[in-house]
């Protein structure tokens, strides 16, 4: 249900290509993306995804990347010296790991640091923990693409628990 709702937003925002890295929390979203036949390319590393996204933008299309927040650390330079430098738009959707209920201790340090890293890069970010917070997201995504900006969205674990 929550996965369908998120993919509804992705579809209505006119996303042409979804780049992704694996994540347990995001697997339902990816299945839904494939079920609807939205172009979906899995990449080997987040930085590569930022490069492919730039190529998609150069063709006049709208890309997004789905990843864990830990992957943010793997693509900081590309987001700055490619996406930001050329003023290219991009939607980043991240599972926000490391919070309450996280079983993997390695997720905690980057989970805490990720929003601060985005602040340092002056990238707008929104954190979604409840289903009603998804309302209005399409407007935020449209704004980012219309203004050649990066928008990062954190999806919290609670979002799935709420509907289960």
């Amino acid at each position, binding site marked *: 249900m929550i996965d369908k709702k998120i993919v509804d937003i992705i579809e209505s925002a006119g996303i*042409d*290509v979804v780049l992704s890295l694996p994540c347990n929390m995001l697997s339902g979203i990816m299945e839904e993306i494939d079920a609807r036949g939205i*172009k979906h*390319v*899995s*990449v*080997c*590393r987040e*930085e*590569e*995804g*930022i*490069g*492919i*996204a*730039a*190529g*998609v*933008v*150069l*063709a*006049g*299309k709208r*890309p997004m990347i789905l990843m864990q927040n830990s992957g943010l650390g793997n693509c900081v*330079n*590309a987001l*700055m*010296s*490619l996406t930001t*430098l*050329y*003023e*290219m738009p991009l939607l980043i959707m991240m599972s926000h790991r490391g919070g309450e209920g996280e079983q993997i201790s390695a997720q905690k340090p980057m989970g805490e640091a990720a929003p601060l890293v985005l602040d340092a890069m002056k990238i707008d970010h929104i954190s979604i923990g409840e289903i009603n917070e998804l309302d209005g997201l399409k407007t935020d995504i449209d704004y980012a693409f219309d203004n050649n900006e990066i928008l990062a969205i954190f999806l919290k674990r609670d979002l799935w628990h709420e509907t289960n």
Partner: protein
Amino acid sequence: MKRIDIIKEVSKCEGLIVCNIGFPSRELYYISDRSENFYMLGSMGLASSIGLGLAMSQEERVYVIDGDGSILMNLGTLATIANNKADNLCLVIIDNKSYGSTGNQKTYTVGSTDLEAIARGAGNSDVVRVKNNNELSSALSRFINKSVVIIVEAEPGNENVPIIDLEPVKIKNRFMRRQVQ
């Protein structure tokens, strides 16, 4: 071959060019500046990825001018290219066995590393290694409708060419405008 001669040969082809950061972009800018050129000014390693994204999102042929040092920084993309075949993508890896733009430090292709084997092992079926202008020009035309990786053996060294005096956003905007027209 000298890198600038390789770039000259690729720039004769009809299509879009994504060019690697540093001297390769400066040399292309010097030889033939046109709005179909996307000059990378940062994000070393991502030329091949940008080229793939561009090739899969529109129909014109895309030439990526990459280097051995850059491709070694982003080997995963060779697998992504192999498994998401874009028949309009031509990846030219200029292998001069050195990091040319930072002072010609050696890369591992001077040792035992074989980029042709890596590209094939990543799953790319059309991979060729060329040594001179004739071989390069024939490879460029032979694979015109296919996804291909061309590895060109080159001498180390940079041409004495000026820096690119274009704003990054200008490089992007004029490249994108020509797509819309």
